Structures are given as C-alpha cells and as structure tokens.
C-alpha cells in the first residue's frame, strides 16, 4: 500500500523531465545568442547621470545610449584595453579640432537613428550636452574637468553639424565627451516627459531610455536583473553592423562563490568581480578563459592624514613607508594579481619618467624605518588606528593584519578598525581618519588629472589631505601645457615631490580578472571597469 502512494509523485517527476527534454533544443539555440553576465552589484538607474548610480548602471548606459565619440582600443601586454589617445566617432561620422585647439566640430552620421526610428539630429546633441552641464546631475562635475561648463559652448551649425567652443585648449575636452555621462538622448521624447520642476526629465529617464544605443531595455528590475534586446538597426560598431548578442542578461548574484560556480558550469558567460582565490583556482583548472588586466587607471593606497599628528611629520610618513611588508601584503590581499607600485630602484634618486602612477622607490627596511622614527622625535613609537571598509574586507582584512604586525616591530601600536562603507566615506570626507586604506579610479588617467584631483584641495578625494601650494601650482600649469616635453618635465617634478613628501603610499593596481566561457571573444578592459556588452561575441 505504501508504495502506491508514491506513484503520483514519480509520475509528475517523469512528466516534468520529459517536458524539460522536449524544450531543451529550442532553448539551446537562443542560449548561444544570449550573453549572461552575473555581478555582485546591481543596476539601479537607466540614466547614469543620477546621483547614486552604480558602476553597473554606467556599463548599461554604454550599450543603451551612444555618445558623439568613443575610445579606441589597444593591446597592452597582449590584452585589449581602452585607448585614451585614439578617439573615434560614434554618432559623429568625423570631427575636427581647430589648430588653436579652441573649436571642436562634429559631423553626425546621416544614417543614425534613435531606437524609436527618428533620426539623430544636432538639436538632440545640443539638448543632451546642455542637460549634462546645466541639470543637477553627475555629468556636470565630469565635464568640468574638460572645460565644458556652459550651454553657450554648444552650437548647432546645421541639422547634422555641431560645434563646441572651449575657453582654453583643454586636452581633456574631447575624451570627456566619450565618457559615460554625455550620452545623446532623444530630446523630442525626453521633452514630452519634462515637467516645470524637472525640465531635463531626470525622473522619467531614470526608469526609461530614449537613446540610439546598440541595445534596447526589455525588462528592468532594479537590484535584480536587466534584460537587453539587440537593436537590429544599430551600426555604430567597428564593423558597421549590430552588436553580436541578440540578448544580454545582466543579473545580480551577491555571493561570489555562487558566481564562480555559475561561470564554471557554463550557466553564466562572463563575470568580472570574483574573489582572487576563486580566479586562481579557475585559472588553474584551465577550462575557462581568464583575462587579467592591471587596472591601469586605478590605485590602492595606504593613506595618512598629513594634517593630523603624528602623520603631519614627514619622517613619520617615511618611517611607515619603509615598515610596510609590501610583498606579503601583495600576496595576502591579491594573491599577487595586479601590478605592484613599490620596490623600484631610482639610480640617481630621480623619477624614471613623468607618468603617474609610478613605482615608488620604497621597500620593507625596518632599520631605516626606525631611523626615520628617531628623526621624527618618536623613537618609542606611538598608537594609531588603521581603518578599512567592510566592502573591501576580503582584500583589506589580511592586509591590515600584516600592517599591524609589521608596524608593531618598530613600536607603532595599530588598532584595526573595520567600518561600514557609508561610515567610512563619511569619515574620509570629514578628514577624521588618521591612517587607512582606500582606492581611487580615474576615467581619464593623465598625470595632471591625478595630481589635481587626488592631491589638492580640501575635498574628499584628497585622501592624504596634503596642502602643498607648489605641487598644486605645477599640476595646474601642466593641465594646459601643450608642449609634450614640458608636460613630461612637470610630471617628473610632481613625482619627485610625491616621493619626497610621501603624502600617502601607493601599493598596487589590482587586476581586473574577467573570467569567461572559452567561446567568448573580444573582451576589452574599459575605462568604467565593467564589461562593454558591445565588445564581446561568441565563436
């Protein structure tokens, strides 16, 4: 009798299995044309300009909207990375820079259409750029770095030509137009949804798209997943044809171990935010393609507050720089996956070149560290705290333990402080942390940009709170320096000052480990550090 009662259950199972087998072939076919990307983060807005938007939202907007221009790509040690120096047209068919560098003229593609079928005109471009510099959105601060500040600078010449004028010949004006924010919006559609309070339709564009990009948003579940459908008419790719994948699924999977399982079993196609330990074991198994690119526009620091005793003393900062166990930290935090920014040798004590970030001429040398401490008048050492945020615990925690141990040997007592992310950013902004680890990233990595944004002013990104008028003046001068040799000379000066003053200690540039199915091709490391879905294809 007992066995009879189990029969219906096994029947259901068998039927279900049959159904699954029956539907399998049709699914497999579309699976090859679908890209499934999993991530620990999530898309929270369809307009990357909204304050609070995530990096995933940035990446999404690259595929849903076009810009006037785009970065080219180049090979760096055999891996494709974005190329800041090659700027190609995206919506612009061609562009000219006037000889004095004050006027940029863009001619639009005649065949470019928005996703609703209407043509892209110079009016749309002007409206979108005006929005970027006028509306209270993120684009404003970004375009400011390229001397683009006012709507008067954008002029419609004819329906397919737009002119941008600059107050100074700014090298970063053109690259700025290729970044995430100055995307070109269908102004007719957006204006329909603008209100008196919200003339730039920010509320509507947060949840809807009106662009000319390669992909159309099919479903958008904030915090969970986004499904994209290819726009068949899009032809702004390098080969003048639509993007490869018919569908793209962007899915949030918070647990890193699960993401690793998914990509290893072939259920996910590409992932860029795995834990270093998982990447190493997946690479060792050799079934998947692992492309590791040093994030050459990002840096991880150990920062010291230069305004706060005892770190206001340059000898204390030097002592710390010689007391960090760099190699052990590099192995423990990143499993050596990155490029180190320590341990250089400068033969004549001068920087090797004028490029920032550079490898610093420091290494673990406890005797030297003790000497510096003595020179600072603190031979017995002191006590301090070392902070990091919870979000970076997997790399920062082992690192902090090593810092504590090593500094203990020269008499500096370190308390490790693990802070929730919001609390950490608040304290950094208020300049309350004496000693901590953090990272930075620059979309447009040039030496003067780094020094101006991360080493000057009383603002959040000046982690070390350094206030050195000479350094600020040289960085400012370098910004508009047209002569390459002089620019290089300025860079060398700045780097020499960095090594001398030791405001903070550069540790390394972590790798971006993109792990993907063996069939995926074309992955490129982009400035926004996410996958550009238009780059990839399947063999």
């Amino acid at each position, binding site marked *: 009798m007992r066995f009879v009662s189990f029969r219906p259950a096994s029947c*259901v199972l068998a039927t*279900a299995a049959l*159904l*699954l087998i029956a*539907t399998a072939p049709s*699914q497999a076919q*579309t*699976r090859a044309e679908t890209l*499934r990307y*999993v991530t620990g983060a*999530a898309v*929270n*807005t369809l307009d990357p300009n*909204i*304050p*609070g*938007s995530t990096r995933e939202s940035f990446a999404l907007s690259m595929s849903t909207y076009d810009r006037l221009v785009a970065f080219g790509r180049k090979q760096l040690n055999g891996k494709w990375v974005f190329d800041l120096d090659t700027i190609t047209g995206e919506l612009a068919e061609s562009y000219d820079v006037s000889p004095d560098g004050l006027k940029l003229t863009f001619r639009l593609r005649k065949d470019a259409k928005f996703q609703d079928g209407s043509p892209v005109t110079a009016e749309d471009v002007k409206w979108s750029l005006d929005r970027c510099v006028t509306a*209270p959105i*993120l684009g404003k*601060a*970004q375009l*400011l*770095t390229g001397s683009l500040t006012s709507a008067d600078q954008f002029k419609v010449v004819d329906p397919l030509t737009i002119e941008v004028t600059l107050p100074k010949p700014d090298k970063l004006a053109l690259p700025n137009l290729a970044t995430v924010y100055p995307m070109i919006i269908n102004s007719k559609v957006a204006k329909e949804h603008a209100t008196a309070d919200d003339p730039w339709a920010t509320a509507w564009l*947060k*949840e809807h798209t009106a662009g000319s990009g390669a992909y159309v948003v099919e479903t958008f*579940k*904030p*915090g*969970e*997943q986004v*499904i994209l459908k290819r726009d068949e008419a899009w032809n702004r790719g390098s080969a003048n044809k639509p993007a490869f994948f018919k569908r793209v*699924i962007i*899915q*949030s*999977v*918070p*647990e890193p*171990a*699960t993401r690793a*399982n*998914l990509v290893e*079993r072939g*259920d*996910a196609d590409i992932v860029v935010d795995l834990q270093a330990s998982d990447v190493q074991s997946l690479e060792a198994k050799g079934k998947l393609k692992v492309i590791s690119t040093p994030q050459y526009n990002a840096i991880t620091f150990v920062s010291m507050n230069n305004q706060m005793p005892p770190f206001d003393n340059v000898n204390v900062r030097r002592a710390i720089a010689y007391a960090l166990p760099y190699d052990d930290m590099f192995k423990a935090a990143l499993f050596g996956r990155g490029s180190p920014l320590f341990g250089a040798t400068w033969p004549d004590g001068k920087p090797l070149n004028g490029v920032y970030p550079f490898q610093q001429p420091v290494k673990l040398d406890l005797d030297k560290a003790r000497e510096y401490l003595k020179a600072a008048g603190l031979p017995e050492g002191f006590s301090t705290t070392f902070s990091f945020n*919870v*979000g970076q615990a997997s790399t920062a925690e082992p690192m902090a333990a090593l810092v504590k141990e090593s500094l203990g040997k020269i008499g500096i007592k370190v308390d490790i402080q693990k802070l*929730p*992310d*919001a*609390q950490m*950013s*608040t*304290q950094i*902004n208020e300049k309350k942390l004496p000693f901590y680890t953090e990272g930075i*990233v*620059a*979309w447009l990595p040039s030496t003067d940009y780094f020094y101006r*944004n991360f080493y000057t002013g009383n*603002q*959040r990104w000046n982690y070390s709170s350094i206030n050195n008028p000479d350094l600020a003046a040289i960085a400012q001068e370098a910004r508009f320096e047209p002569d390459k040799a002089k620019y290089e000379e300025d860079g060398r000066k700045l780097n020499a000052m960095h090594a001398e003053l030791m405001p903070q200690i550069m540790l390394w540039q972590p790798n971006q480990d993109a792990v993907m199915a063996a069939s995926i091709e074309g992955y490129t490391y982009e400035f926004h550090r996410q996958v550009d879905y238009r780059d990839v294809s399947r063999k």
Partner: protein
Amino acid sequence: MTTGLGATLVRAGRRLLSSLPALFGVLVFTFLLMRVLPGDPAVFFASGPNAGKEEIEQIRKQMGLDKSVPEQLVFYLSDIGRGNLGRSMMTGQPVLKDLRERLPASLELTFTALLIALIFAVPLGVVAALRPGSAVDHGVRLFCALGVCVPTFVSGLLLIYVFYYLLGLAPDPTGRIDVFASVPPQRTGFLLIDFLLAGDFEGWWAACKQLILPAVSMALFVIAPLARITRASMLVSLGSDFVRTARSVGLSWRKVVVTYALRNAILPVITIAGIVFSTMLGANVLVEKVFSWPGVASYALDALLSSDYAPVQGFVLLMASLFVLVNLVVDICYGIADPRVSIE
C-alpha cells in the same frame, strides 16, 4: 463552539488594537536610530569619480536631510500616514514598491521552509518521545544538533556544491526562477500560486526546483528547536493521567498518541513555530544572499550597509507589523487547538 470562535476573534481584535502604540514606538525608534548611526548616506551615494561637495549637498536635499531631525520626523510620519514609505537611493524605486515585490519572495521561501521543518520535526519529536533514551531518540538528537550547529549559509553553500555543482540536479541558484523562463502574470506574487492560476505546470515545477534548496537549508536550521519542543511536550502529555486512562480503557494506539497526547502537546509547538517563522523572515538574509533570492532581508541589509534610511525604516515597520500578525494567527490557532484557551 460559535461563542468560542467569537471570543477568539474579539481577543484577536483587542490584541491588534493594543499593538498599535508598539508599532508607533518602533517607527519613531528606528527613525531616530538611523539618524544616530555615524554614516552619512549623502556622502556614500555621491561616490561617482568626480562627485564633490555640490553633489553631496544635492543628495542631502533630495533625501530631505538638510532639514532638522524633528522636522524630518514630522515629514516622515505624515508620509507614512499617506502610505508613502519614501524612496530608496539604492534601487531608485519607491520603498513600498520594492517591499511589495520582494515580500512575497521572502514569504514563499519562509512558508515552504517552515512547512518542510514541521513535516520533519513533529514526527521526529513524537518518535523520540515514544522511545526516550533509545537509539532512535539519540539519532534524532544527533540530527538536530547537526542542523543547529551548521550555519545556514554553510549548509546552503554545501547544498549548492553537491546538488548544483557536482551532481547538476538542481537548477542554478540564482533567484526564484530560471532567467530564460517566462514569468506568470502576477496575481499574488507567490510564484507557486501564480503558476497554478495560470495553469502552467512546467513553470510551476521550475519555480519549485528553484525553491527546494534554499528552503531545505533554512529548514535544517529550525528543525532542531521544533523537534526538541515536540519531544519535550509529548513526554509530558504521554506521562499524564488522561493518557494513562485512555490506555487503560484500551483505546487504539493511534487514538491515544495522535488524538489525545499530540493534540495536547501541540500548543507549545505552535508558539515556537510562530516565533521561528518571524525570526526566519528577518534572519534568512544569509540564505537570500547565497541563493540570490530577491527577498526583503537582503534588501534591508544592503540598505543598512549604505545607510539608505528609507528602506531600513520601511523594512523594520514591515517586520513589526508581520510580527503582530503572526502573533494574532498563533492566538487563533491556540483557540482551535485547545478550546479552553478562548474561555480566558
């Protein structure tokens, strides 16, 4: 019997009214607690590569943080009165919408887990109580101990490793439904019910498969308290006078154990089940994270880490209301299981 039921309902209504001040207290307390926490959400969310002072001020204004705390509280309470829980910075959506979409996911998971736990725990407890000190009793004790001492995320990861990674039996542990499958028209938000209503049995089975592993890993953790309490109260009721009498008059084994002993022993189990349910709903954040389950607990945790006030406050209010509801249901169940309770 009708008067018994009526009395239970009156009692339930009175309970509901008396819980309103507590709910209000929770509301104000959470509001103040979030303001006292040292993180500044405006700074956190203004973290684009170029966000400066201006952006921070703007977000502060957008979130209403430029006003004084008492003013904010008044605005907040009047918003709540109009059914507006505010907007989440994290997802960019109204909190009410987020919670409405995510609560069914959490409830479905928790109900299933509780059901699985009860199906296993009650018989295990009864069997253990019938033969105290025997090998069966020790076996149950060992099983319970193992269930409790393995944290849910460990059992979750282990289950994924075995059933998904090694054996390939389970579907990929990413949410409530396979990304390639289509979603049924939303009626209740409970996928199992929605699929049944739509008559899509293939979809129902797919949703069921997604649900099994997370529900089992949650159930493993709560089987122990339920089984232990069943065993303890069964022991008491098996040793009581009425069971001895029932046995002596020669009633069948089944009637003695199920009708007399178990019915009397079930009250504490219902109480514990109510508490376990409320705890599971809030505490299943680890399971939700491991299985990418789009539930309310992981939503609240993310919001808390980024100091996103509105979702955290909304979540606490939701949990408090659910707690009140669960207590009510437990009360009503008491009345049904033991008519004496409603007499007061």
